[in-house]
């Protein structure tokens, strides 16, 4: 499995721990999380991660703002379609482990906030992929105690477990209980799981770590493949102390952290198709100049006015794109829909497919009257000279609407320097320029 690890602290030592079980890619430079996420370098595409982790620790380091974190997530989802991006809850883990999670010395020496045991806990969240969930019953799978009155089903949690089971994750019940008290609970109203959904059940009064060990042996999988979920902190501490390889979930559990790809099966297929196509494109590009390469892609473009079904994708593109985004206005779906229904606004969209695959809707241009307000392209489709095609379509359409002079703007952001001169290259005339903005016009002949 290939894991890309982006963090606001140094993860070099953690990487050595992870490298024993998975392939790890870490961006060069200290704390380059936001930087890397907003404009992923070529090496990250070449690595083609199966999963991306954002490891954010707020103990010592300046952590990215919530806004930056959100933009990072959006950008990575755009650039690596179908690849799960997971942000493990490090502060919950730190709280669970206590003081020994951190090592102030290492922070001072190497900008690594964590102790060795802290890093081993983090490594358990990241790799190897888990195969089984060992779950407690009373107060965990349901609220209340079986045999002591009615229990209330934790419906959402059970549905999550059922989904995991359908993806091939093994469910194991570990409960300190009397078997005969449980029958009533299993028959409670709204129960999602049934005893048959569990591949093994240990209902007894022995140590849970002993029970888990014997289940692991029966099933023939390692204890490191288990996630243990229990509402009782004493049981969690016991499991940690006796079977340190087991990933012990904080409670309430955040299961997606442990099964990042299982929760998103369909997208997994999307991901492999995307990477496969990307790999073939790379092979085709080798040794060719850009024009020959583009020719060989046999691209099929569809350029036309925005229609209502594409409103959400246009809003998504406005929020996810950072590099090829001339003014970086972020739009909600409602805002894009309002533009669509306002005759003074015009939005053109571009869809592209090539002989290796379909990239979908990858660019849009938004004009208000005769002014180009937005020009946005996905990181998936950059460097294909597609900007010229959609721009000339926009020109033609505006001309039809009686426009004879169009204006446009580039506004500086931290990430859009690559498109700083794009309007010059398209033959626009620069009217005024400041550090922050460039303003252009073009007379339509």
């Amino acid at each position: 499995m290939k894991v890309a690890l982006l963090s606001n602290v140094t993860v070099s030592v953690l990487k050595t721990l992870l490298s024993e079980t998975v392939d790890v890619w870490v961006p060069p430079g200290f704390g380059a999380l936001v930087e890397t996420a907003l404009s992923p370098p070529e090496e990250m595409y070449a690595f083609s991660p199966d999963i991306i982790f954002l490891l954010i620790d707020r103990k010592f380091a300046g952590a990215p703002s919530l806004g930056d974190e959100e933009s990072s997530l959006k950008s990575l989802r755009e650039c690596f379609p179908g690849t799960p991006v997971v942000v493990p809850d490090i502060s919950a883990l730190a709280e669970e482990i206590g003081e020994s999670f951190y090592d102030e010395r290492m922070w001072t020496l190497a900008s690594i906030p964590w102790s060795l045991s802290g890093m081993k806990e983090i490594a358990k969240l990241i790799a190897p992929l888990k195969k089984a969930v060992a779950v407690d019953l009373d107060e965990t799978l349901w609220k209340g105690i079986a045999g002591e009155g009615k229990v209330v089903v934790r419906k959402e949690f059970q549905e999550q477990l059922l989904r995991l089971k359908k993806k091939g994750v093994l469910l194991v019940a570990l409960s300190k209980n009397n078997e005969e008290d449980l029958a009533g609970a299993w028959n409670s109203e709204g129960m999602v799981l049934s005893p048959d959904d569990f591949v093994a059940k240990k209902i007894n009064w022995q140590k849970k770590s002993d029970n888990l060990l014997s289940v692991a042996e029966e099933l023939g999988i390692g204890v490191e493949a288990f996630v243990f979920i229990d509402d009782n902190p004493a049981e969690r501490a016991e499991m940690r102390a006796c079977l340190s390889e087991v990933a012990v979930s904080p409670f309430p559990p955040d299961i997606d952290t442990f099964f990042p790809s299982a929760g998103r099966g369909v997208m997994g297929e999307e991901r492999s198709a995307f990477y496969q196509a990307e790999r073939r494109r790379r092979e085709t590009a080798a040794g060719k100049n850009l024009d020959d390469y583009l020719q060989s892609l046999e691209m099929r473009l569809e350029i036309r006015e925005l229609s209502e079904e594409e409103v959400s994708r246009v809003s998504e593109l406005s929020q996810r794109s950072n590099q090829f985004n001339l003014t970086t206005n972020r739009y909600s779906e409602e805002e894009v829909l309002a533009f669509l229904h306002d005759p003074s606004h015009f939005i053109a969209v571009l869809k592209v497919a090539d002989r290796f695959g379909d990239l979908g809707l990858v660019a849009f241009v938004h004009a208000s009257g005769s002014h180009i307000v937005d020009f946005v392209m996905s990181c998936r489709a950059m460097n294909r000279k597609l900007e010229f095609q959609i721009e000339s379509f926009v020109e033609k359409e505006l001309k039809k609407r009686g426009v004879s002079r169009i204006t446009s703007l580039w506004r500086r952001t931290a990430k859009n320097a690559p498109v700083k001169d794009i309007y010059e290259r398209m033959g626009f005339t620069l009217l005024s320029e400041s550090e922050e903005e460039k303003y252009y016009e073009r007379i339509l002949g």
Partner: protein
Amino acid sequence: MDLENDFISFAASLFGVESSLISPETSMGDIPQWDSVMHLRLVMETEAKYGVSFPMQKVLEATSVSSIVSLIKEQLL
């Protein structure tokens, strides 16, 4: 096995090399596997294995087998 030999085989398995490649004189940088990143890992793993704790300054200074072994001895005595 004395402490020095025990430590050498421990370090060798951490670096994934034969014990014969490591002697008391071996220092960080002498073998490619012992770089500055793996040095930090070695220090932390050593602390966990021997139940010792390196003062911050020593983490940077103790970069040879013999200096690490004498630090362990100091603390275990």
